[in-house]
């Protein structure tokens, strides 16, 4: 990124002031609702619905959060979300790097065809495969099970593409040297290649974790009882209760859904945004 070497001329100063004004307004428009969500979740119900709307809670209360645990089985939804996200992430890291390695570094018949097949499905929208996937999972007797929630997402084409591209940049000599030393192919993959793939694995891991944590349609359909609800499903289904909506409860729930993803993102954002940028350019 270019930095400013020369002192600003008058015109630039005006341009800069305008840019700052626009950007700050934009930031408020984007972050404002989140802030309002957090603050409002700490208000009692009547104050949330108060007209005119307020920013800071006049009466500070954690009642909405307590209610999540008293009235709903929130720890369970949280655990379900975490379990599904972790399993899907681990699966993608393992299966995608296995195939990525094979495609980038091993020669075997059918390699090109397999790569093209994987690339081809990269474009297929989830809505197209959704009905047969459900029929399959249902025939396997996996509706409302963790396996049903996890299996269809364990191995995605995007991860293969990402891992293959990264693995191409790892020198063959390294692998060859390990082979000469008599290491088995899986040992080479596990001990030599994977540790070198940390940046790509991190990118894939964060992307997969966040998208699984926020996934909505599939768990909405496959989780049929409360025991298997993930956080977004629980939140969505409780937000259409009969009669008046309990905004306090929903806002507290929304904070609980957003926070883990936000923490993961904020801690790893450098890595994450770089990953998005590079995959976007390819």
């Amino acid at each position: 990124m270019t930095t400013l070497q020369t002192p600003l001329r008058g015109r630039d100063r005006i341009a800069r002031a305008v840019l700052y004004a626009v950007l700050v307004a934009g930031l408020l428009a984007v972050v404002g609702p989140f802030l309002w969500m957090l603050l409002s979740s700490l208000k009692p119900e009547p104050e949330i619905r108060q007209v005119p709307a307020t920013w800071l809670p006049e009466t500070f209360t954690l009642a909405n959060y307590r209610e999540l645990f008293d009235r709903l089985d929130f720890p369970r939804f949280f655990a379900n979300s975490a379990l599904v996200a972790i399993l899907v992430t681990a699966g993608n890291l393992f299966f995608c790097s296995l195939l990525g390695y094979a495609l980038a570094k091993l020669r075997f018949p059918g390699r090109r065809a397999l790569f093209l097949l994987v690339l081809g499905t990269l474009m297929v929208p989830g809505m197209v495969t959704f009905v047969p996937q459900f029929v399959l999972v249902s025939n396997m007797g996996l509706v409302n099970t963790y396996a049903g929630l996890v299996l269809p997402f364990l191995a995605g084409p995007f991860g293969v593409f990402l891992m293959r591209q990264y693995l191409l940049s790892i020198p063959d000599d390294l692998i060859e040297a390990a082979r000469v030393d008599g290491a088995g192919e899986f040992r080479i993959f596990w001990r030599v290649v994977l540790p070198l793939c940390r940046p790509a694995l991190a990118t894939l891991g964060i992307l997969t974790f966040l998208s699984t944590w926020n996934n909505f349609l599939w768990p909405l359909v496959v989780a049929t009882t409360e025991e298997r609800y993930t956080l977004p499903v629980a939140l969505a289904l409780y937000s259409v209760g009969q009669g008046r909506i309990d905004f306090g409860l929903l806002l507290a729930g929304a904070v609980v859904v957003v926070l883990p993803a936000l923490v993961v993102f904020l801690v790893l954002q450098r890595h994450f945004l770089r990953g998005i940028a590079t995959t976007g350019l390819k």
Partner: protein
Amino acid sequence: MATAPVTTPGTGPAAPTGRSQTGRTATATTARGQRRRRALTGWAFAAPFTVLFGLFLAIPVVASLVMSLTDLRSTDLRTPLSVDFVGLANYVRLFSDDLFLRAALNTGVFVLVGVPLTMVLGLAAASALNSGLIRLRGLFRVGFYLPVVTSIVAIAVVWRLVLDPEAGLVNALLRLVGVDGPNWLGDSGLALPSITVMAAWRNFGFLMVVFLAGLQTIPADLYEAARLDGASRWDQFRYVTLPLLRPTLLFGAVVTGIGYLQLFEEPFVMTRGGPLSSTLSVSYHIYNQFGFGNYGYAAAASYVLFVSIVALSVLQFRLLRSRD
């Protein structure tokens, strides 16, 4: 791609270590054995992914097409023999289904309004942050990206409150200037634009990051040269930035267009497709038909969606290419 055939002595990967003598004496049979072992190793690595991918993704893509030609219903799952091939009947029915046509129209609006809006916001944010006049770029970048990594359900909860006719922030702001704000999500004329704006708000951060990366690949001396020629900031943007950013813009447009074509979660959690089906999308229609147990019919609708996605991508490629 350079291949190193094992049968060619001296050029094999092991050559630099000086152990290629063994390769030189290798007979045809061991060479074949080696090739077979390589193939086995390759497939051993590829198999776990391929099985999962085939079962849960590749086969369903084809199964969806087959299903769309049948009258499969949820009640048939236990007695598959009762399912009949009905040819294109599901597709014919789709285009005489008022709800589907309404959903297609709504989805068209989502795409035609949503994509340009999201692109403009993303490009504006990226250009501002790339201008060199701004400090705290990281802060803005992360801030603008927040909604992208946030659960749509949580966003919907907040936005329903933000757009609430009485307690909402938007109408509170309007009241400050003496305007009585409408019921944004309850009005069948306003719900669709409201959700489109919300979707643009949610997604522009992704394009910003992609465009920022694209902007940084444009060499600084091109701007330098343009400045020496007396080009204004706008001229530089128009004649340097836009043309050089074209591939990135194309990527952004296609990805965003595909996203809006599949819009489901926003109308589901904000309005349940209402009021009066004014926010029903094609994906939502598929979901509903699936819920009613009409699997064959839902599969047909999903293939129409698939074909439109492919068509949109091809069209966008053509459009952007032909402007050269």
